[in-house]
């Protein structure tokens, strides 16, 4: 009887958690295939990159002081073409214009700066506002035509008059020709002067002011390409230590490097790897252990990695195993054969931390995304879908039925749509506002403000 009581108590508290921490839909934007999503440091701006090389930036409305129940909505602030498709004639290679990553610089003045990259070229964009224009020139008409100086009889002082807000994006730096392979990551250093770019085999260090030179800091290309066994999948600078960065590999390892140790960081300072039970090894083991994303916590104490089936939290002080592991969609383990055949097993999911590092989030299939609360150890599955959610409705938790009898409202594994994948998600640095990208749509959710 005691056991029964306890389980009832647990069920009730799980239900309660779900009710109070659910999310409202309030925004939906249709685009080309979204390839990256990133909030800026204040969370006021949200940038998305797409397969067509475009960047769309959303800005949060200023909070309405009367209606303090809801936070501001995000509206389109600026749209620009960041990259164009190119063709490398020498290598007979098409260079896609798809934006792989966007990273914001911290704001230093009135303008905003971001780095955007495709497979080969990184660009620094300046986004600035213009809300005044000069009027009353002596030698120019209002439409710009020059006046005949002999017709000028009086002089006036030109003044700035307000105009409709115009947001302009201009490329300030172009960092090109430094990567033979495809760029998968860019990361701005905490010194705010340098940044790294990583491709499959090399990592380069750049100075934001200098475009004609970059330093190679990691090179894992073997002398003989036949001996190639692993590639770099992601890289990131430590949020506080400007000499430290990590990179993850297709074999499921993470290497932490210290740039003070040597100019070329081929030898790691720390190697993070979870030992594998050799009896469990299968053809799929290495493929599903490939890390698709690595992200430091805001505190800098932890890092999170995403492999095909799980999210792992590592303590930087412990290399031999992660401190926490969360199963994203373990039910896919018995579907690996078909997922290999339709290439889904190679999908690269990203992951993100909330502002206080207490919750982590990642995407899955069927437009599902998952959140894991590190403190309570509870998790939730939500769906980003236009069918089920009108603006301002509460999201209903979802459940996948792995096997056996399917309960009402549960979805069976075989009914999952593997074409509807959520690869990119982002969490506002301060608030409980999240951006979730399905293939063609951007959803922004916020939690209920009491």
């Amino acid at each position, binding site marked *: 009887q005691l056991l029964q009581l306890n389980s009832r108590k647990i069920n009730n508290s799980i239900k309660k958690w779900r009710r109070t921490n659910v999310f409202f839909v309030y925004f939906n934007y249709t685009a080309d295939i979204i390839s990256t999503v990133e909030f800026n440091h204040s969370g006021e701006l949200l940038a998305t990159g797409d397969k067509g090389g475009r960047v769309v930036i959303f800005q949060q409305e200023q909070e309405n002081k009367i209606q303090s129940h809801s936070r501001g909505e995000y509206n389109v602030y600026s749209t620009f073409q960041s990259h164009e498709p190119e*063709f490398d*004639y020498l290598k*007979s*290679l*098409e*260079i*896609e214009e798809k934006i792989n990553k966007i990273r914001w610089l911290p704001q230093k003045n009135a303008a905003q700066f971001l780095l955007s990259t495709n*497979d080969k070229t990184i660009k620094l964009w300046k986004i600035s506002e213009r809300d005044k224009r000069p009027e009353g020139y002596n030698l120019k008409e209002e439409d710009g035509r020059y006046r005949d100086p002999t017709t000028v009889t009086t002089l006036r002082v030109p003044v700035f008059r307000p105009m409709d807000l115009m947001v302009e994006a201009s490329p300030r730096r172009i960092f090109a020709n430094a990567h033979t*392979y*495809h760029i998968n990551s860019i990361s701005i250093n905490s010194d705010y002067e340098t940044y790294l770019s990583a491709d*499959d*085999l090399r990592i380069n260090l750049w100075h934001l002011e200098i475009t004609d030179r970059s330093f190679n800091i990691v090179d894992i290309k073997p002398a003989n*390409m*036949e*001996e*190639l*066994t*692993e*590639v770099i999948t992601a890289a990131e600078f430590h949020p506080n230590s400007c000499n430290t960065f990590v990179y993850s590999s*297709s074999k499921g390892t993470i290497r932490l490097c210290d740039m003070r140790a040597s100019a070329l960081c081929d030898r790691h300072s720390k190697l993070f790897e979870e030992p594998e039970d050799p009896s*469990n090894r*299968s*053809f*799929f*083991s*290495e*493929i599903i252990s490939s890390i698709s994303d690595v992200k430091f916590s805001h505190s800098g104490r932890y890092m999170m990695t995403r492999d095909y089936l799980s999210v792992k939290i590592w303590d930087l002080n412990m290399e031999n195993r992660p401190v926490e592991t969360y199963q994203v969609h373990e039910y896919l*383990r*018995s*579907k*690996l*054969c078909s997922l*290999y*055949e339709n*290439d889904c097993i190679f999908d690269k999911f990203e992951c993100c931390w909330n502002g206080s590092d207490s919750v982590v989030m990642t995407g899955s299939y069927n437009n599902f995304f998952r959140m894991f609360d590190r403190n309570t150890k509870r998790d939730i599955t939500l769906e980003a879908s236009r069918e089920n959610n009108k603006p301002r409705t509460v999201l209903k938790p979802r459940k996948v039925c792995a096997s056996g009898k399917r309960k009402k409202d549960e979805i069976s594994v075989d009914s999952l749509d593997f074409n509807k994948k959520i690869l990119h998600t982002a969490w506002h640095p301060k608030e409980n506002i999240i951006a979730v990208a399905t293939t063609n749509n951007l959803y922004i959710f916020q939690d209920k403000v009491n």
Partner: protein
Amino acid sequence: LFNQFPNLASEMEDKVTSPEKAEEAKLKARYPHLGQKPGGSDFLRKRLQKGQKYFDSGDYNMAKAKMKNKQLPTATPDKTEVTGDHIPTPQDLPQRKPSLVASKLAG
């Protein structure tokens, strides 16, 4: 049950393989030549070669230079056929998706 028949437990373990190993067996049944190097260089090399298109830029630029004034026969809307009759452009060429399925079936 297992206490009465201690050997039964280990027999059952052999039969009940992990779901991953069961999936591996399924895959090997479909593609018997697969997996000499599990997850190894084949995948990685395909990944590094993404974006490869066969295109003779020499022919393309020579033809462009010669026929500056002539009207060129442009590519058919059917982008799967690129023959020697017309001047190809990078956009016309069919995307050569690095197909892992092909490599699975090949030896």
